């Protein structure tokens, strides 16, 4: 495991986490949250936890995003 790659991913993870909290457009926040989950899944894989990585990719990037998109479609898009 290249540690430079891991540090890059961790920096991107923190940037994503801050961007989710600061974005006013809720649909954009959902998309950024999906990117956060995807990076988290790659990090789980780098940390030698493939089972958690599969679950994170399926639930975090898949099901949560779809449910939140449905919730945004039912309500307002701007915060």
């Amino acid at each position, binding site marked *: 495991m290249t540690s430079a790659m891991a540090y890059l991913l961790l920096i991107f993870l923190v940037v994503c986490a801050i961007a989710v909290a600061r974005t006013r457009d809720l649909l954009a926040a959902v998309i950024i949250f999906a990117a956060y989950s995807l990076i988290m899944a790659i990090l789980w894989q780098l940390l030698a936890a493939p089972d958690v990585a*599969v679950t994170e990719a399926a*639930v975090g990037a898949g*099901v949560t995003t*779809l449910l939140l998109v*449905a919730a945004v479609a039912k309500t307002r898009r701007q915060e």
Partner: protein
Amino acid sequence: MDNLIVRYISRIFLPFVQLYGLYVILHGHLSPGGGFSGGAILGAGMVLYALSFNLPEGEKNFSPDASTILESGGTLLYAGIGLFSLLLGANFLANKAAGYPLGTPGNLFSSGAIPVITLGVGMKVASTVITFFYRLIAREGGQNGAAD
């Protein structure tokens, strides 16, 4: 969401997503993943279909009745395997002690009752995810509200 490109791509993608979900479920005792992850992938595939088309189209493909049967069937499969090993004279959900054929480790048909239990969990999780989504976007007496 009336978008031709989204509909077409999701129609192409759906078989591969479902095949991968079934792969993860059926190889739950051999590789990473298992009932929960595979069921979530299967459910997310159907949700993608219902989101890119509309809710009536999705319900035509996977009706609420089928969801009810699959959900109850998954639970009954899990509990039935557990009770069956009780019937064979071992503990609840006992595997080797109940005398299930274990097979060679690494084969697809191995490790006794674990693949059947994983299949039950996968059925339950997939139908639960689909039911969550259907009930979330269902609006009483109307079309699903796909904003912008």
